[in-house]
């Protein structure tokens, strides 16, 4: 076996090893980012749910009725005379 061939084989094996490690690290990193994104997406979904619930509370027919009743009971403001 010539020296050049030996160097090539060692170089090739080292490159494969480094490549494997790199791919492994990349896979882990991508997985971690993916999980983070899933958690973030869930979080955004929950924020949306919170806002929807707050809106539902505002649209509660009982509260609307109370507002209408209060509006009807309150004395009407005098309107400024039209020009």
């Amino acid at each position, binding site marked *: 076996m010539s020296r050049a061939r030996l160097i090539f084989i060692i170089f090739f094996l080292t490159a494969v090893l480094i490549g494997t490690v790199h791919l492994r690290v990349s896979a*882990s990193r991508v*997985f971690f980012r993916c999980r983070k994104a899933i958690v973030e997406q869930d979080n955004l979904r929950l924020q949306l749910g*919170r806002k929807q*619930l707050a809106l539902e509370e505002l*649209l*509660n*027919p*009982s509260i609307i009725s109370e507002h209408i009743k209060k509006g009807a009971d309150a004395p009407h403001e005098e309107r400024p005379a039209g020009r």
Partner: protein
Amino acid sequence: MTTQRFIIAFHLLMVVVFGLLGWRLFYLQHCRADHYANEAYPALHAFTQEEPQRGRILDSGGVHGRVLAASNKIQTVYVDPGIMGHWDDVMQTAAALQEILGIDAMEFCDLVAQRRTHRFVKIKEGITEAEREAILAARLRPVGIQSEWRRYYPMGALTSHIVGFVGGSADIDEPDRVGLAGAEQQYEALLKGARGKYVFLVDKRRYPIGLDTQKSTPARDGSSIILTIDSTIQEFARSSLLKQIQAYQAESGVAIVMNPWNGAILALVSWPDFDPAAFSKTDADRLRNRAVADPFEPGSIFKPIVAAAALDRGLLQKTDRIFCENGYYEKYRIGEWAGHQFGYLTVKEILTESSNIGMAKIGQKMGQKALYDAVRLFGFGQPTGVDLPGEDAGILAPTRNWSSFTVTRIPYGHEISVTPMQIIRAFAILANGGSPVTPHIVRAVVDDAGNVTELSRKSNLAGRLIKQEVAEWIVREALTNVVKEGTGQEAALEKWQAWGKTGTANIATNGRYDTVNYTASFVGGAPADVPQVVTFVAIRKPNKALGKGYSGGRVAAPVFREIMEKTLTYLEKR
């Protein structure tokens, strides 16, 4: 030569060394593989449990309808005092949390000092998104954020008795919260979902770098349910009922609005009600759904049912004139309400004037067996099957326990106990021409993928409990006349022809009826030709001393009118 020997010896040594290493490798990788894999497993893996999101409860508007109950996560900040080594750490954390959450640093230090051995000390519940991000950015090692589901009831007390509430589960294999009342309890199996488990491969910092899909099972969120309840009609019913209860200083009240053609309940109010989010602080009496759990003596609202049964069996003709003993039936000790005195009355007049004696005589014409069978046929003495927990069957004694008076008492609603749900179901049967219906509050189920499955609840309109012409005559002639000329004139509607029956039932106290406590009720529907909705209203113990009246016609009929006016207008314009 020596060198050659040395090389051979060296090679042999290497072979032996590598042989030993190979054997050791084989021993570790094959013979002891399971042992070391088990030892290493916890260090290489992390486990998390995922609580499922409990299904939502929506009103009749469907997927885009109003949300009556839904779960959402709240974030809780906690600290682990076990990993705070020195007081410097505590002070540093306290200062950071004071800035982010606004909590007092000294109080935080005291709290940590008191719970030095604890691994979880709750600091603040329900933090905002900005606070969460600030805590994460601060990278405080002893501080963590935990998420947990919380159940919200945006309609508050409005739909409390329908939706119910959830509470802590005693079963550790089940999700944290289980339904304890209302639809939450009845539909627990659909709503709860299934808990998930994730197994992650982790690096030395315990950051997840892979998912063990073989050993992981994702959580399955609960299905949502769509109710037949319309929040707007519910509000009409609740506000009208509550106004009258307050005006008459009454003890309690029930209002139910139902579609008579399929038994769908559009509104159900049982007052007193409660806030489902604070049920644990509520008096147990307020938690009782009186619409299904409280049987009462119905009084005169029971009369049309017995009259319809007698007409249906041919034991009575519409033209028959019954002598009403001029106000007092001495043999059976029965008087008329408010001291009225009637001579001969037809069935229609008996119902219009609400004659007790006339009904007692109809009962006698029927006899014990026919009366019992008819009442049973209309579903009394047995649960209606409504999909709400805690339904009472009411009380209908078997004929062997009847006294000689019973056959004259049941026809005007004494010696029998019924629930509001049983009464409205019976009137729905009259309204739809005699077909049985099953009252229900759930219309459809939405699975976690969003597929909507309508539940088949159609009434069997081909099978009738009584003849169609009898049911139609009772509604269109007799009960319409009650509203036009009889005791129910306060129930008359402007745009539609209403029909119905009033009831003013004595409440027995210590085994005797008194003259102070009554249940004022009205049940009926509109329009008379093709009834769109039937409504039941009962107000228990209106304050007679106010001098404003206490009868069904005076107290309950106006509530019926208000609910019907608003509901029919709403349904027309929707």
